[in-house]
């Protein structure tokens, strides 16, 4: 029913908002990835268009990549928390649950299990998308325990190395020495080892990256969603700079992301043998389906 439920009766169509009708007619719902996806962005009605993010926001760009990469947007629910990210995520044409502070992975645990009860034969993809503060500080125990419990959903951390939405305070993912609000003398410890924590906690597929290449970024997101369906929790740790709090001039945002890619956000990909086998199966079947 998932696809049919959004298609209006023809006589009713003219009364619906233009945006809705365009999403039904020209959106990615029910289409093959090769027809839509990141490669065709701009040529179809995207799930995220307008958003209130700052000029040059690298997070907004990455959120557009996330939504353009969804294998099955008509059966996807996203969950997020307070932060800049949800300002754009909540404007996507996909159901979005905004819970309380940092509780996204606990909510997703309940939701994923409940979906499996109600729809044993339909794959419902649950994805949590939250910032470094939401995932690794206030939501830390809920993030970690969802992984330990092997909950089958995808976790995406938008790491801008600060609390951007509340005005630039130190976060657990800020660099050692960074002078931010609440660290007026410089942060006195380094970034939390999010990737290692995810691997230790049992994630079956983990990527750390600075998403400068949209195809590579999309491939990681899709792999994470496919692996989460049957194998276990998956985690993507993406660099999504805050050009305001780190004073990165808008024209230099991409260069900054390239620079981070050479340093602490160098591409790293971890997968279990089962995940590797799964990707080999999916990607050999139809190469375009994943990459």
């Amino acid at each position, binding site marked *: *029913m*998932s696809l049919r*439920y*959004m298609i209006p009766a023809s006589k009713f169509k003219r009364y619906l*908002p233009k*945006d*809705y009708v365009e*999403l*039904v007619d020209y*959106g990615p*719902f029910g289409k093959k990835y090769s027809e839509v996806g990141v490669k065709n962005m701009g040529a179809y009605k995207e799930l995220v*268009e*307008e958003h*209130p993010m700052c000029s040059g926001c690298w997070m907004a760009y990455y959120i557009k990549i996330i939504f353009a990469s969804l294998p099955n947007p*008509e*059966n*996807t*629910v996203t*969950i997020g928390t307070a932060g800049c990210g949800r*300002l754009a995520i*909540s*404007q*996507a*044409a*996909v*159901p979005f*649950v905004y*819970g*309380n*502070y940092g*509780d996204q992975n*606990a*909510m*997703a*645990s*309940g*939701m994923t*299990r*409940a*979906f499996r*009860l*109600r*729809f044993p034969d339909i794959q*419902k993809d649950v994805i949590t998308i939250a910032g470094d503060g939401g995932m690794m500080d206030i939501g830390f*125990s*809920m993030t*970690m*325990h969802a992984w330990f*419990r092997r909950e089958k959903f995808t976790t995406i951390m938008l790491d801008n190395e600060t609390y951007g939405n509340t005005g630039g305070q130190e976060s657990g993912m800020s660099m050692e020495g960074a002078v931010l609000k609440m660290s007026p003398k410089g942060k006195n410890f380094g970034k939390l080892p999010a990737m290692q924590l995810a691997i230790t906690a049992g994630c079956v597929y983990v990527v750390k990256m600075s998403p400068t290449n949209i195809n590579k970024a999309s491939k990681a997101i899709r792999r994470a969603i496919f692996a989460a369906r049957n194998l276990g929790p998956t985690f993507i740790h993406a660099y999504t700079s805050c050009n305001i709090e780190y004073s990165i001039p808008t024209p230099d945002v991409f260069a900054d992301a390239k620079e981070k890619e050479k340093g602490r956000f160098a591409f790293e990909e971890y997968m279990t043998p089962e995940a590797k086998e799964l990707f080999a199966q999916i990607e050999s079947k139809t190469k375009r389906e994943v990459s």
Partner: protein
Amino acid sequence: MSLNKTLVDMDYLLNEAPREKHFITGAQAMAEAVKRASVDMAIAYPITPQSEVMHLVGDIYAQGHIKEYYRAEEELGTMSAIAGAARAGVRLFTATSGPGLLRGLEAIVSWPGHRVPCVLGILTRVVNAPLSIQPDNIEMAYMLHCGAVMLHAENQQDTFDYTLAAFAITEKVDVYIPVAVATEGFFVTHAKGYVNMMDEKYAYKEVDPYEAPVPAMDNEVPPARIQRDAPVQKSNFMSYLIHSVWQQEIWDSNRRAMKYIYQYLGGPIEVINPDADVFILASGCAAAQAREANRYAEEEGLSVGLIKVKAIRPFPKQEIRDALKNAKSVIIPEHNIIGWLASEVKSSIDNSGIVVDGPRVYGGMTLPVELIMTEIYTALGMETETLQA
């Protein structure tokens, strides 16, 4: 469910299904109610003294009465997972107490606003410090202002009946907010009492998410929610408006629950000896002691009335006003130091000067009937040994 249950509506389950007498604890009574409620999913976290409820519910899950169950990492994780699962359209139960309730409170108080239908057991316990694990219902005071429906059970039988009724009330189209069923830790949860229960082959009809007034976020229920929708960002003005109308609707929903409290529980209050001048008014375990005091008074030939308050939210203001219309004094015994029930009553009646603030016990003390009797003698203008001493 493979247990071959007879699924029935709540009226039949509560009022018509044949019952047999059992001698069980309050914790068992709550779990037995959950067993008959066709619960899809329960999420547990251990806390003293109530832990027995959620591990008994775990046993019920293992027996096949519940489809999904797990122990969460902590209370906030539990309550958040309930909120997540509710979005997927399943019937839910959890229980907590005291510090655990406060730890989960950020999520719990957002349930009504998120229109999360579920049943929350509150097996009351002291809130620290100093450390104590004894019964004391002060935590209920923190729950009064969130919009949830709150029932307060006097004994094991109430715990069973209220918990079952709660599953029906929470899913009503014109309610659809969580229902909390509270009772006192230890005094009720760990003590045995007689409970008349229907056979476990009877169970409440299963939840139908397509009947919900707020569609599940399962991408299955029309109208589709693919419209870009982030009202808070539109403008501050829109934000004020949306929040205010939404909150009004939650409290209206809370008030609309009252008719179901009449339907399933025979009303929000029970009154004995309505023509008395002096009343004892109490809820929960204190009502059991108040009932005893009422019996003592009767034996002594004194005319004393009893008002048991079953529903704390919606609070039965009108019913209490009517019951106390001609009263000269109302004694309110409570298991907490602040006297939240006395405050509620005072704000409901015109002549709040008739309220006797107490007796109150807290920190886990028992509530001796003699304490209530002393207040009765004082209210009736009689001299007592205590006063003479």
